[in-house]
């Protein structure tokens, strides 16, 4: 910021109103460095987005030329009961998953922050599930969560609890998926751990001198100081939850043994979108579905950003 201000000041001080010289070589080099990204963005992101927007106003089966249908696909969105069903499933899942993932990841990060020398090892252990292919995770948890013989329910039985049928009872399918996803929290844990290590120790010492107990220190020092990281993961996890696909598809729609048993409790929005596009070849309608999700994510993110201004503290913004 200071450099920019200095440049402006310098420009203003040029005698005779002469235009400031630009270092074109540096500008060209800068554009050269970012050109690959720009090309990638145009070709792989913006271009397909525009194409998708155009297709959303057409009847298109990926084989014949698209035919314009105006707003028909968007009108269909309103009357299609599966849109409401899948959207409801997705929102419920997001409400269950996002807070759970943040709480569990924060707890794990706080434990890791106290481990000391072995923290590197445990960090790796927690991060390993992130490296596991999502389809494999889905298949694995289909076994672990089995109501009769799954490891989770067998463990619960040891302490006298009869676990639910996580994969077949419609009331427990979404909590089961939340458990599945909590296994791959390594990325969030690492972010929180990095944030926790940035909290100045003198703040805790000052709080202790004021008589703060552990809970007060957590509430009044830790949470505010890592609120930037919490906010970032809130946004990312929300978007990720709203785009839930891999594990749910593998567990309830794609695996061979379940290929004919598609539990509607796990019909998430992107799965429905995928079915419309690639099972029924309704590419135009699927594009409209994609744009609706885009708008929903945009609105939710905007609300989160707006609300965050009251709660998020950035160290770099202080005077």
């Amino acid at each position, binding site marked *: 910021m200071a450099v920019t201000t200095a440049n402006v000041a310098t420009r203003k001080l040029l005698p005779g109103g002469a235009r400031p010289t630009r270092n074109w070589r540096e500008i060209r080099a800068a554009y050269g460095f970012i050109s690959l990204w720009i090309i990638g963005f145009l070709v792989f992101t913006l271009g397909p987005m525009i194409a998708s927007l*155009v*297709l959303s106003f057409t009847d298109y089966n990926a084989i014949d030329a698209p035919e314009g249908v105006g707003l028909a696909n968007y009108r269909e969105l309103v009357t299609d009961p599966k849109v409401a069903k899948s959207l409801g499933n997705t929102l419920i899942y997001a409400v269950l998953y996002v807070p759970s993932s943040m709480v569990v990841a924060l707890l794990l990060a706080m434990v890791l922050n106290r481990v000391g020398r072995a923290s590197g090892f445990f960090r790796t252990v927690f991060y390993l599930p992130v490296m596991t292919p999502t389809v494999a995770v889905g298949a694995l948890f289909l076994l672990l969560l089995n109501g009769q013989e799954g490891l989770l329910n067998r463990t619960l039985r040891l302490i006298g609890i009869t676990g639910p049928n996580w994969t077949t009872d419609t009331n427990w399918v979404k909590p089961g998926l939340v458990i599945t996803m909590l296994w791959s929290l390594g990325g969030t844990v690492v972010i929180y751990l990095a944030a926790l290590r940035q909290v100045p120790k003198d703040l805790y010492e000052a709080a202790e001198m004021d008589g703060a107990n552990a809970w007060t220190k957590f509430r009044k020092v830790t949470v505010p100081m890592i609120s930037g990281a919490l906010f970032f993961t809130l946004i990312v996890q929300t978007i990720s939850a709203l785009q839930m696909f891999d594990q749910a598809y593998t567990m309830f729609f794609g695996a061979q043994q379940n290929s004919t048993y598609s539990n509607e409790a796990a019909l998430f929005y992107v799965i429905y979108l995928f079915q419309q596009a*690639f099972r029924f070849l309704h590419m135009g309608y*699927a594009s409209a579905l994609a744009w609706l999700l885009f708008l929903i994510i945009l609105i939710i993110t905007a609300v989160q950003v707006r609300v965050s201004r009251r709660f998020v503290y950035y160290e770099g913004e202080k005077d």
Partner: protein
Amino acid sequence: MTITRRGLLAGSVGALALGATSACGGVSRSGNDTGSGDKGDTGSLSTQGFGKPDDVGQARIDAFKSAYPNVQLAINEGDFDPQQFLSAVASGNAPSLVYLNRDLVGSYAAQGAIQPLDDHLASAGIKTGDYREAAIKEVTIDGKVYGVPEFYNTRNILVNGKALQEAGLTLADVSTTDWNKLHTVATKLYKASGGGIARIGFDPKLPEFLPLWAKANGADLVNADGSPNLDDPRIIEALTYALSLINEQGGWSKFKAFRDTWDLFGAGNQFVKNQAGAFPWEGWYVNVLVQSSPKLDLQSVPFTDKQGSPISFENGSAWCLPKGAKNPAAAINWMKVMTSTDTWLKAGAARQATVEKNNSIFTGLFTANPSADDQIKAKYVKPGQTGFHKAIENYYASTGYAFAIPGSKAGSEIKAAWQDAVNRALAGQQKPDAAMKQAQADASKAFSAAK
């Protein structure tokens, strides 16, 4: 308004929300060769959906290579992947051949993703009359043939002899003719353990075998013209009945969770572990059981309708010609060779070699070519008195009377509609009546919209 197509397709649907789905498949390269002349005896030939060939598949590939040594084969060994296939067709890189389930043919034909074969078949001398009628019916849409059928899977009831003995029942008791009696039999074979299930007595195999239960009650899910008939009262009655069988055996949630624990392909399968009493199943499963548990007390009976006549439901795969397929003449040659009687006999010989190597039993090859089946059976299937031999005999018999769901231009949508309806009924989200009525409404809408 018509918009230029190709530029719009690639990845556009997934651009906003489908980062995840992009991993589900990619466009296959089918090579640059545009094929040979009209004979189809040179050039390259690419396939999609054929999977990884076993001894039977490899023997037939070898037969084609031997007949057409100058055709370069490129077999994509993955199973059929709609995303991969459609991307390839839409981007102008269609494979020469696609191998898919016959119940998908109608929808792809209606969408123009695959081509009618009538002219090609006529010029290549392939007679549809040489194939089983039910299989041809599945791939015939609006009077045009869109695929050459290959395997032919029928269903019979497989029974666990040990469970039968424990329950004090005989094989004659396991019958779908008298639905009231079947309730009793299922309950006797069923065993609970603690809060869970120890043995399923009779598994009606929902949702996938609803067509069989509907037929047993005198109804078809799809009419001869391809239109849906899902809210027929007889179908609703059949679903209600099959559902009641499950509800009396722990209810769907426990039932499915227990069934998911079965080791279907292993030595510790559900029969060996005494976890299953009886269920209808496809013929190929006998081959699995004879290898994994050859000493099993397996018994079998035909599925029967309420009048006591044996019925069976068949399905299988077909070879189709994608839109824009390169080297179609070679593709038709492939279809002809792969499904000819001579080639099936070579496949039978290969299977027999495997059987001898494993000191096992030849459990039959069930194809859409009845002549080949008869000759293979006569040559390799040995008569015997074991349960396996009886089961093989029953499956051969069922090829003679099995029915198919007629091909429909909205086949995928109709199938999705009834399967989703059954799933809703199983999960208790809807009563069978409401579920099937909703399915009929959804399927009718799709059928009307299909071009």
